[in-house]
């Protein structure tokens, strides 16, 4: 199979990640639950991973790295833990349902009101539009670092600069960029970063987290056992225990630890450069095929995604032919990004998303280009 659905999850993981997980499954106990060597070594691994991720994302204190099972959980914690009754939140039409649904739920549950930054025909938002949407009760801006549909990146620095002029909290969904783009929360003005471990980070599914800036207060989302302060009837106040309850995914975190090491050993610039090279080769190969429509802004910073349609053909049908006849995995349909599809006019057709990872090859790209050409010819577009 040629796997080009890396925006959903990376299929090929570094061997060191797989070994770290299997080794952990043979040796790990439960962190924070004792001082015998098995529990302590687990606690050490988890601590080490916090330290590495703090450095990776530019946080000063590893205690401000909170582990979750994915970005969705991280975003739920961030949004539900900071937005209050009657608040107004600014978000965008680029967002994934992991941002939209928590916000819609707050609309219903807590009389929160929402405004959406609009996109142009290329799928870009304008940070200056934030100023037009500000109200006295505006509390936060929740925005993606890059669209999971088009790959377009947002200008996070400009967004957070403007947001902080108005005293807004900035929450950033880095699901599509963590692991392939440099992120420094202090440098980029990010108050709460939400990331996942299983996409460009190349770690296991079931990992992810928040990286919280100094002085940011988030109410607990789930409460339960923490291994500390057992006689307290409330969740401990201190991070990370405040936002972590129950047994940690130690095995997964061990894998994430190895994934950070792998990325650091190769270098983020090298990884980004290779992914961009693969994406550009594919884009150049398909953009002039008759009947192909490509979505997104290829003149601005982006992730390694090419989103396209062939004529009026249903995206699901195209993706199915690619999978069955050519052995190429892509993702069709709505991509959990309903507002982006509405903005692009692709609600009924959907779109075929082709997404690359560091481990894809130019040969795979060339085969994918050939496949798209043949499908377009067959459809006589």
């Amino acid at each position: 199979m040629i796997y080009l659905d890396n925006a959903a999850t990376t299929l090929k993981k570094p061997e060191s990640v797989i070994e770290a997980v299997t080794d952990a499954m043979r040796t790990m106990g439960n962190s924070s639950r004792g001082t015998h060597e098995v529990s302590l070594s687990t606690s050490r691994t988890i601590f080490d991973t916090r330290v590495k991720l703090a450095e990776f994302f530019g946080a000063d204190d590893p205690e401000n790295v909170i582990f979750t099972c994915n970005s969705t959980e991280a975003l739920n914690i961030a949004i539900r833990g900071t937005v209050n009754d009657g608040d107004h939140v600014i978000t965008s039409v680029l967002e994934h349902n992991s941002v939209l649904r928590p916000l819609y739920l707050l609309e219903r549950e807590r009389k929160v009101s929402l405004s959406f930054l609009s996109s142009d025909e290329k799928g870009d938002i304008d940070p200056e539009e934030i100023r037009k949407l500000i109200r006295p009760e505006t509390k936060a801006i929740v925005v993606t670092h890059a669209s999971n549909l088009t790959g377009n990146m947002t200008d996070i620095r400009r967004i957070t600069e403007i947001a902080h002029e108005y005293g807004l909290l900035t929450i950033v969904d880095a699901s599509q960029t963590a692991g392939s783009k440099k992120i420094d929360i202090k440098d980029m003005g990010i108050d709460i970063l939400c990331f996942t471990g299983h996409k460009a980070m190349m770690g296991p599914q079931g990992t992810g987290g928040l990286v919280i800036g100094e002085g940011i207060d988030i109410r607990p989302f789930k409460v339960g056992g923490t291994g500390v302060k057992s006689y307290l009837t409330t969740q401990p106040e201190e991070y990370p225990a405040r936002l972590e309850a129950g047994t940690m995914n130690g095995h997964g975190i061990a894998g994430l630890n190895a994934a950070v090491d792998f990325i650091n050993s190769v270098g983020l610039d090298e990884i980004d450069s290779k992914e961009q090279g693969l994406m550009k080769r594919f884009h150049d190969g398909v953009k002039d095929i008759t009947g192909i429509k490509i979505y997104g802004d290829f003149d601005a910073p982006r992730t390694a995604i090419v989103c396209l349609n062939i004529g009026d053909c249903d995206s699901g049908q195209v993706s199915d032919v690619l999978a069955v006849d050519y052995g190429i995995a892509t993702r069709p349909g709505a991509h959990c990004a309903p507002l982006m599809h509405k903005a692009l006019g692709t609600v009924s057709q959907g779109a075929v998303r082709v997404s690359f990872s560091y481990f894809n090859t130019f040969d795979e790209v060339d085969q994918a280009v050939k496949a798209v050409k043949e499908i377009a010819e067959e459809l006589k577009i």
Partner: protein
Amino acid sequence: MIKERSLKKIITFHTTTDAIGFERYCMENGIPGRLIPVPGEISAGCGMCWMVPLEKAEAADRLAEEGIMKTEGSFILTM
């Protein structure tokens, strides 16, 4: 086997992260001691604490007293 009791310095922590961070610093810098379950006589945030024989406790004490590492409290117990 329960060993002969002697005076120990006990350093407690608010969180597991603080405890493991303290251990890492000590291991990297050759500071004696180890993590043990918090003795019943002491109440602490985190369930593990740093224990070191009192006569070897100077270096660990300094970490706590000078705020080099985050700690909660400091005790002397016979254990």
